[in-house]
């Protein structure tokens, strides 16, 4: 539209014309500007990961200007007194210099680390949202799989990242990785020798991890994020059901200016939070850990949270070793470490195909499901979440044992038993809750809302008056179909009572002057 002559002849119109002459932009630009996006807060979780990633690229570039990925032994001569004169790797010395002798270096290090934690956390939460609402179903299985791959790339990118400073904690992490690698049948010792250039820790692993951390993986992540977002764009975002919403349309607002402005604001907000955290909250104080020495470690050696569940599983796994004397051994760490990680990669990757097969569901789905409406899937998801949380807690069981004065062995046994029992209980309980919620929805649709008005009939029987949602038949029943969206459960939701107070600091549901509720989003447009 910029090109149209006669409307305005501003500089912008002219520039638009020049651009269009060269790149033929008028049509694609209009389609882009007009594209309709559905709106819901839960659609913004993946964006947090994207914005954290941008900040990771920026802060990481700063760090790379000063960090030296070298394992050459040097004697520390920097300003941090407790380590002066200590032999350490060049990598650790330069990481210390980054923290003490580069202006704003500590701030950048902490921003990089906090952004990683937010990046991984938001990927996880985003993944749960996608899972529990069935957004991974056809035609979006590919994007789900890309998302899973992104998580695992982020997992190793993060692990390699906090291994780079070569401090006591990061060396311990690498040691555990080495022990896991050694346990792989047939190739274990060879794989370990390839990773570490011979015997652990060797003198080459930091430079190898460095090129992977700053080049190979960021490139892969960037490429996959581009495809991930491109597919969301091309396939159009899913939407919640609601009045006027079908499998064949998208209800929402335009990409420009509404969506883009909100995204920019949200991005700056995430960056603001991360910037404040980087300055105010300490993370990974490497100068306290000292250089890595194979003979030194302390308790409370925890990996970053996204690695913790794996560490927890390794702690919990019983001492079961398969021996094939006299030559072969299958160490216990192989099962949680290698098989456990392999399953954690493969099962989520395959899940959409499995569900498709077992639910015999071949259709395309653009409307999301409320978690309650697919009790089996929701319960399975909660089961996995419980399993994961027990793993995470067990990954820090020495800290829990110390802080809460519990026996360490009791923590381990509680984890072992919990890991087997609790997910099953969680499955059952979630399933029942889902069914209960489903039933209540149907109940309201059939009998109406509870009004809180108690009546007494001539026989002396008390009963509660129900407000039907439609014209009832002679039995007081209404034949309303459940449409997959929120059923009003309170009188104020249908405008019959002044609304309940909602909002954090200030009421956002103010009654109108005639006492009837003005905002009835839920019923009018399906928004929440």
């Amino acid at each position, binding site marked *: 539209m910029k090109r149209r002559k006669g409307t305005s002849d501003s500089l912008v119109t002219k520039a638009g014309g020049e651009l269009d002459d060269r790149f033929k932009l008028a049509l694609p630009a209009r389609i882009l500007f007009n*594209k309709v996006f559905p709106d819901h807060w839960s659609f913004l979780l993946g964006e947090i990961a994207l914005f954290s990633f941008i900040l990771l690229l920026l802060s990481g570039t700063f760090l790379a200007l000063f960090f030296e990925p070298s394992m050459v032994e040097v004697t520390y001569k920097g300003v941090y007194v407790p380590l002066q004169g200590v032999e350490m790797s060049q990598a650790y010395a330069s990481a210390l210099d980054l923290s003490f002798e580069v202006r704003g270096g500590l*701030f950048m290090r902490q921003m990089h680390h906090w952004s990683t934690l937010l990046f991984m956390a938001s990927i996880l939460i985003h993944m749960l949202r996608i899972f529990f609402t069935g957004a991974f179903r056809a035609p979006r299985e590919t994007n789900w799989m890309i998302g899973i791959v992104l998580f695992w790339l982020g997992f190793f990118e993060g692990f390699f990242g906090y291994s780079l400073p070569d401090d006591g904690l990061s060396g311990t992490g690498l040691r555990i990785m080495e022990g896991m690698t050694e346990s792989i049948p*047939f190739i274990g010792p060879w794989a370990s020798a390839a990773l570490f250039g*011979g015997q652990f820790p060797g003198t080459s692993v930091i430079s190898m991890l460095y090129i992977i951390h700053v080049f190979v993986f960021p490139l892969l992540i960037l490429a996959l994020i581009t495809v991930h977002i491109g597919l969301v764009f091309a396939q159009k975002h899913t939407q919640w059901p609601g009045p006027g919403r079908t499998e064949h349309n998208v209800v929402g*607002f*335009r990409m420009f200016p509404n969506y883009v402005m*909100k995204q920019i604001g949200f991005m*700056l907000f995430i960056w603001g939070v991360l910037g404040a955290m980087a*300055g105010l909250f300490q993370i990974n104080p490497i100068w306290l850990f000292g250089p890595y020495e194979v003979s030194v470690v302390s308790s409370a050696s925890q990996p970053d949270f996204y690695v913790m569940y794996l560490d927890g599983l390794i702690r919990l796994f019983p001492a079961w070793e398969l021996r094939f004397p006299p030559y072969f051994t*299958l160490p216990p760490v192989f099962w949680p470490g290698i098989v456990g990680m392999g399953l954690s990669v493969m099962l989520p990757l395959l899940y959409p195909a499995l569900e498709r097969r077992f639910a015999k569901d071949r259709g395309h789905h653009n409307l999301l499901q409320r978690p309650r409406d697919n009790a089996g899937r929701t319960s399975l998801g909660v089961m996995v979440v419980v399993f994961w949380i027990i793993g995470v807690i067990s990954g820090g069981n020495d800290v829990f044992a110390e802080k809460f004065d519990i026996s360490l062995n009791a923590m381990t046994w509680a984890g072992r038993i919990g890991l087997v029992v609790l997910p099953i209980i969680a499955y059952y309980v979630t399933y029942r809750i889902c069914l209960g919620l489903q039933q209540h929805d149907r109940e309201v649709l059939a009998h109406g809302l509870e009004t809180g008005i108690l009546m007494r009939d001539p026989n002396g029987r008390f009963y509660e008056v129900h407000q039907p949602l439609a014209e009832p038949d002679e039995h007081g029943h209404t034949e309303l179909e459940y449409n997959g969206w929120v059923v009003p459960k309170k009188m104020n939701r249908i405008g019959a009572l002044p609304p309940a107070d909602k909002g954090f600091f200030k009421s956002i549901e103010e009654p109108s002057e005639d006492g009837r509720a003005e905002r009835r989003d839920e019923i009018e447009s399906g928004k929440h």
Partner: protein
Amino acid sequence: MSAHNDSNPPEPVDLSNPKLSRFEVYKEGLRRDDIEIIHYEPRFKKPGTKAEKRMERIVGGLFLFAGLFATAFVVAYIWWPWEYDGPATWRDLQTWYTPVLGTSLGLALLCFAVGVLTWAKKLLPIEELVQDRHDGGSTADDRKIAEATVDNMVEDIGLKRRPFLVKAALLGAAPLGLAAIAPLGALIKDPGDMLTVTGWNAERHNDGEPIRFMMKDGALVRPDMVSVGGQITVYPAIDHGATNQFPTSPVLLIHLRDADAEVLRGNLYPMYQDVDALWGNFVAYSKICTHVGCPTSLYEQQSQRLLCPCHQSQFNVVDNAAPVFGPATRHLPMLPFTVDEEGFFIAKSDFLVPPGPAFWNRPSLPEEDEK
């Protein structure tokens, strides 16, 4: 066109009509993109009201504050004293360098963010639109044409008519693929005996002379340096013996009390009895956990247990350091040792079984498992 409501789709308009308003032209664009407006109204029904002005002031104020805080960040970054010179208290300005950076940059970004969000949420028109999704594959025609195009292409190349060429190409391409990844083979190294031979191997590291015990600082170790019930970490007294070059060599030297030593002597595995692995009440265990290789550095004197803080494997000091809890499956190997004529501890030999985490082709000696 659209299945989303009952009203008739909007009619196309004649764009050459000079009387069309801008909004009508705009709506024609929406129509061509299969978009319909459900709801579209200005946020403030009357432009220029007090409420609107107030909102403008808020947004403008937020932007200006963002600029202020960003300036504060730059100023602090340049002029705030930041150089570390030893431990500082909260009174020293440099203590606050990083918090000031975080606060100023964070507030700048947050102010700008809230400004943009307020603009979008409180000043943009209230709108709700619906767009057709066009889900599912292409039209039958498009598919048919694409199929024909591909078939034609296959025909042109002759994939079906020239099976020999196809096979030859595959046979040629497979080694090319291998060639592409072959250079990674430069990383492959023969692990050799790196997992079984340690710094205590006298032939390898000390010309066959027995290797003495040394502490981290290089001091040689004599029996009187460890009090009863005490323990120290010792390393082979060879070049770089205490560094990461010898990751499986660190040894925990424990001076047991009489009673504990007696129990241990009673429990000693035959292979350790044969070489007389203890010296007096002293015992030397590999410090590297047999689970995944962290140092088992926590020694609990009361229960005579060694604990690895990584995964909580626990080893019984008075029973050959056999694992008693946690994921470890093997005992911490004992280093047979004695005292030389000058009174220093020396190793009699390398560990009898490989120290450190188990691995696939770890030789399993029958005598190490059972007493």
